[in-house]
């Protein structure tokens, strides 16, 4: 589960590679290769080649499914991605309808992966907050100007900054009418979880995957305070955090920070990624304070009682 751009495709590409190649030791394994592996291999290829999977692929809109099991155990689990594009979830929020296929998945699932991309989080930033900043800046520059005029000794060409209609930034933009897609990310995720509450077996395990986690780790290095995935969820999407916490009878959850890419694919940054010995060495997974490379960790948590 996850909105558009949440990192699902990249995660799947990396996961598929690691499960199929057995590059790193893992207790999770493929039960059998999926019959139709074309799209899985397409995602894997994109990941191996350090590129974002093409968004135009119609495969994005088709459900993806494969069977996995834990080593030494008989039980087989079906890992399902109903819609990698995220459009299905946007559509659920807008059109308020669940497809028959999704209904079936929801009523039989034993766990959910919810992907959130920190870069894609739409927050409720208020105009009044900007107005207050504007006011503070106006006061500050007003004081500077007064100071400058006191010290000025007749410079006839000195110009004052005045907020006129011409330089008022807000006049450059037309008011945008609301559409469902402009809703806050945390609100959409809460609502699509609420939709399945009557359907799921309770309590249902939810693994939140904060994608592009390498960015947060980098920021952590520059700060005294270390942000774990759980702290990130509580601070950046507080409404969602409250919702999942207060409904402990319905959901049990953990939060994982995952960077399947390992870093940015920008021209300069990707050079660092080329240096890895194994593709799986790029992966970063954090759970609480522990940082590792096992991309199957969230799934293992979902499967274990």
């Amino acid at each position, binding site marked *: 589960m996850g909105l558009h751009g949440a990192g699902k495709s990249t995660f799947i590409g990396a996961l598929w590679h690691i499960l199929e190649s057995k590059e790193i030791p893992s207790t999770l394994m493929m039960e059998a290769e999926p019959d139709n592996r074309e799209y899985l291999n397409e995602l894997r290829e994109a990941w191996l080649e350090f590129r974002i999977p093409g968004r135009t692929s119609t495969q994005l809109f088709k459900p993806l499914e494969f069977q996995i099991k834990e080593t030494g155990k008989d039980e087989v689990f079906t890992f399902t991605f109903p819609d990698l594009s995220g459009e299905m979830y946007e559509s*659920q*929020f807008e059109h*308020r*309808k*669940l*497809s*028959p296929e999704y*209904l079936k998945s929801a009523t039989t699932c034993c766990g959910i992966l919810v992907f959130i991309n920190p870069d894609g989080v*739409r927050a*409720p*930033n*208020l*105009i*009044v*907050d*900007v*107005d*207050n900043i504007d*006011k503070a800046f106006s006061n500050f520059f007003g004081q500077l100007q007064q100071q400058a005029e006191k010290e000025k000794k007749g410079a006839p060409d000195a110009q004052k900054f005045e907020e006129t209609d011409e330089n008022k930034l*807000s*006049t450059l*933009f*037309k*008011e*945008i009418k*609301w559409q*469902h897609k*402009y*809703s*806050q990310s*945390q*609100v959409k995720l*809460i*609502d699509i979880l*609420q*939709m399945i509450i*009557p359907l799921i077996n309770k309590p249902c395990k939810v693994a939140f995957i904060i994608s592009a986690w390498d960015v947060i780790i980098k920021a952590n290095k520059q700060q005294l305070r270390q942000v774990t995935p759980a702290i990130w969820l*509580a*601070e950046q999407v*507080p*409404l969602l*955090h*409250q*919702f999942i*916490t*207060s*409904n*402990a*009878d319905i959901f049990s959850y953990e939060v994982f920070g995952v960077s399947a890419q390992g870093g940015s694919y920008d021209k300069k940054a990707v050079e660092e990624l080329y240096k890895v010995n194994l593709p799986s060495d790029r992966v970063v997974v954090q759970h609480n304070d522990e940082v590792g490379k096992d991309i199957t960790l969230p799934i293992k948590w979902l499967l274990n009682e």
Partner: protein
Amino acid sequence: MPTCNEVGCEVVTKGVCLNHFEDLKSCSHYSSEGEVASRQEDANIIDDENATDANPNDGGLKVHTGLSLLEEEINAISKDDYTRLIILAGMPEAGKTTALLCLMHQFQTQSNYRNYLFAGSKTLVDLEEKAWPSRTDSKNESAKTVRTNDMVPKFIHLKLAKQQQLEKKENLLFTDVSGELFKTLKDSTSESKKFVLANRADHFALFFDAGALSDPSQKFAARIAGLGILKSLTDVGVLLPKTRIQIVFSRWDLFESKSDKDRHRAFIETIQKEIHDKYSTKYSLSFHIIASRPYKSTLPFAFGIDELFDIWISKSQLDFNRELLEVIPQEEKNARHFLQYTFSK
């Protein structure tokens, strides 16, 4: 939902049988059928939606709309958890919806609000749409709240859980009604008599625009209008003594920006005194000043909302009267109709 036909028995609300039966099934007045019917009704809600709204060939499922709820939709919400009804009343543009959006914003941006956690809402889409014009993404030049146009009472829903008692959820239902409706109620006895949902209100928050009250060209009309709403509803008896009344002087940042504040404050105090003198013997009254979304003001965002919320979440009609008598039509014995509670005298 269990029911008990014994007048004065509190088993439904407090779990204590008036006849001291430990095994409630032994009591002839008690019925737990409501529980079964309730779950069946919940299942039927999904099934009915399937049958009536889904394309039979499609097999999909329509879920809650996310929009404000109609009266018939709030029964399902009130089944599972304790539910309080708060009527936000006042003339158009008095700040009713803005106060509600401001409250929601507090939950959206903090780890908790007043030791409560957000536990869900059936009306998230409406809340997002209403809040949009006040957000930077809308590219509006200034923060706005679109005027509510609905004359038919609808409700915004919030489900909350106390931080120290997460298993106990509470619903807050806020009326989502146009100020034009209250203008109509102020002007018509017959219309006021029809506003029976006020019978069930735990709180009646009457908003006075402090900006208008401190504007010489508007203040007298604003005073008369607000007092008129209160008079109309109390005169016809739809506002019961069990409903707590909050008199809210909203948009206080506009008051603060005026010169000659002492004169304006004195005028507002006469309104307070008039309301107190006329209604305090019959109703529980409190007076509040708020500035939900202060504009270029020294007042903080959500000024005064804390106090209002604390009252809304902690007080209810049940505080006044321990004897809850649920009036259920005989043919709907196992149904529960949130707005049809009455209370013994």
